[in-house]
């Protein structure tokens, strides 16, 4: 529920307040007023962006309570620093950079190790044991892939892969935006996304194979019981 802002505040701030045709405060105006400590402006910015930030956090951590805390933390960091925002980058990009950093810090703390982006995206590259036979799929994902399966697989991705995949394929950011958010090159963003998709394919195929094994086992058990 968004508030209208045309007449709610008193004092000098209210006298300089500009609203759009719907009576809502435009983002640029909300940023300017938030830099002066205006509570309605903070709330406006929160309402403009909270769904995307919360969804990002939820998709990254898969837990509503943690996602709420992370959303709060991301906006808190944003509002603490808002006086320094000069508009060199888009506000939403800045906010998402903060949000991704907050989430990645959380995931790092969870794993209790301080890891770099490379380590977070290439955890077992050295072992080289992961299957790379790209074309040798025994089951096709098309037609059997639903959102629940995908979410489960995404949860198993290393944090760096997860961040790039969620930002690009789920949240719809472009590679140049992701590069800015993640502090990496556009090429790196593309490469990480491709690796994330390939890793997801492996995970999803493994899940399909596991399901098929369980079904065969259940069928065998039922046949034995009938004998």
């Amino acid at each position, binding site marked *: 529920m968004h508030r209208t802002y045309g007449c709610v505040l008193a004092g000098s701030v209210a006298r300089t307040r500009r609203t759009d045709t719907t009576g809502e405060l435009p983002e640029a105006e909300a940023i300017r007023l938030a830099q002066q400590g205006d509570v309605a402006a903070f709330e406006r910015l*929160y309402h403009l962006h909270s769904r995307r930030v919360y969804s990002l956090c939820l998709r990254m951590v898969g837990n509503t309570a943690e996602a709420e805390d992370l959303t709060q933390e991301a906006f808190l960091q944003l*509002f603490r620093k808002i006086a320094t925002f000069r508009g060199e980058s888009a506000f939403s990009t800045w906010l998402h950079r903060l949000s991704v950093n907050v989430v990645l810090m959380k995931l790092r703390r969870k794993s209790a190790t301080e890891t770099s982006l490379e380590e977070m995206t290439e955890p077992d590259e050295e072992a080289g044991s992961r299957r790379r036979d790209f074309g040798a799929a025994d089951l096709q994902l098309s037609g059997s892939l639903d959102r629940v399966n995908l979410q489960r697989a995404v949860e198993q991705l290393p944090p760096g892969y997860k961040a790039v995949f969620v930002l690009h394929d789920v949240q719809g950011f472009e590679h140049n935006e992701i590069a800015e958010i993640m502090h990496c090159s556009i090429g790196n963003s593309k490469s990480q996304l491709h690796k994330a998709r390939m890793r997801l394919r492996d995970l999803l195929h493994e899940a399909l194979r596991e399901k098929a094994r369980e079904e065969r086992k259940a069928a065998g058990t039922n046949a034995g019981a009938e004998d």
Partner: protein
Amino acid sequence: MPPFRCKEFHSYLEPWMNGERSPEARAHLRDCPDCRTLVGDLEAIHSSAHDWGLAEAEPPRRVWTALRAQLEAEKIIREPRTETGGWFEAAFRGLRRPALAGAYVAAVVAVAFGLSGPVTRHFNHQRWLDGTQQFTLPANAQLTTAEQTAVSSFGEATPDVTASLHQNLEIVDNYITLCEKTVQEDPENELARDYLYGAYQQKADLLAQISGRGGYGR
């Protein structure tokens, strides 16, 4: 140029998924069922992810409530506050989760009244949580009836105890009034509703204690 082999096509997958379509890659894909399966899988993942992205979730109202309280605590918000909001949110400033806030309410009021013992519920918890401010009146009416019953059983108590009872009830009533006002101003504020429910519950507990003892302070 001759068509790609599988290895070359795999190297070309990333541009392919970004929309590039070279004739060599097209030719390979036409003739290679394995690579067609691979591309089909990646497109299925991309499509499913896109669908997932369409369903954005709204954070609960309590996230903003807690955030605002924190911004005020850190003096990042500089707008003067209304008396009610200031009192209400200042009391719970810095508490990030409603469960903690609820525990805080319980602790503050329990200390205020020195209560401990069996709890009698005078209204339906879930009904309140699921409802809106429309439940304010029935809950309050039930509490008023319970209060009259408790006070009527109070005739034999000493004047000091009577005064103490009225003082304690007044404190709880003031607290309820402030919570109700906050809920009425912002009916979607889940946190405020939780606090109001907690306030009702504390009053119910207090009255139950009084009725159980046949009078407060006996």
